[in-house]
């Protein structure tokens, strides 16, 4: 069990270190074990250094940098152990428009192996969707699905 954890951890750490510079356009990041001698209880430390910046503690990263780093970890895990279904509820709220576009492109890379359901109010993310479902509350307090024309939403989003 400890060995399997170690193997999974090392594969995830490798994927995380590879994906981070792709997501951030540079920089570097690492996962490390707080106690490599005790695989059953060790914690996991994250370090992240956006391009051009000094390596500092995670708390100093900006809101968008933290969200993007967490999203990078998500994709690293999916890389190592594909999940059949992945539901993301407004995970890109803190990202600027350029990073939203990065995020959308990354979804497309994994979309063969993972079924993504993405809840969003960001137009940039809508651009990366293949199907859109709309939820509305025409009668107050009662949710109802409504059809949303993807082409219209995407045309509006790219305006």
């Amino acid at each position, binding site marked *: 069990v400890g060995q*399997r*954890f170690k193997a*999974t*951890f090392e594969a*995830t750490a490798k994927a995380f270190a590879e994906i981070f510079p792709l997501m951030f356009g540079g920089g570097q990041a690492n996962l490390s074990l*707080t106690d490599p001698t005790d695989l059953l209880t*060790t*914690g*996991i430390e*994250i370090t992240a250094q956006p391009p051009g910046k000094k390596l500092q503690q*995670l*708390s100093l990263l900006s809101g968008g940098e*933290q*969200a993007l*780093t*967490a999203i990078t*970890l*998500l994709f690293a*895990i*999916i890389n*190592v*152990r594909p*999940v*059949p*279904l*992945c*539901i*993301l*509820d*407004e*995970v890109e709220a*803190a990202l600027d428009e350029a990073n939203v576009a990065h995020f959308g492109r990354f*979804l*497309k890379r994994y*979309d063969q192996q993972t*079924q993504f*359901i*993405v*809840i*969003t*109010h960001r137009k940039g*993310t*809508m651009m990366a*969707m*293949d*199907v*859109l*479902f*709309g*939820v*509305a*509350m025409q*009668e*107050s*307090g*009662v*949710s*109802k*699905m409504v059809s949303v024309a993807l082409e219209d*939403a995407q045309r509006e989003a790219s305006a």
Partner: protein
Amino acid sequence: MQLKTLEISGFKSFADKTTIQFNHGITGIVGPNGSGKSNITEAIRWALGEQSAKNLRGGKMPDIIFAGSNARKPLNRAEVSLTFDNQDHQLKSDYDEVNVSRVLYRDGTSTFYLNQKSCRLRDIVNLFMDSGLGRESFSIISQGKIAAIFNSKPAQRRGIIEEAA
């Protein structure tokens, strides 16, 4: 393993029976604030066996049953059904199609079904345990939780690797 259909009836703001058919490709869910998008996420989580009302933003489990509105009375039961294409048998079941249903009544009674056969909650949880949709996994990231990976302690993060292992 692919989610084909989601049926929600009486769960939170979905007073009326709602069916969503998923297709291939990336599915986006959009709509105004408070329309019910996160409720869809929670319906799926609940049907997969979530036992903590807090993880569904409630105080106690009956909070997830439609509580009424201006124009409607409260309902007495909530039901969510998930139908998966299981031709690749990623779910440990002989069925090519797996249907999971969970029902909660306001008096607290619960019933669970696997392909229309009554079962226990634990059977549903076990079915999904090795599929990558387990509780600690990254497969469902709730609204506002993306920052949690940062604020969590190193010891808490190991759960994500354990789940993937």
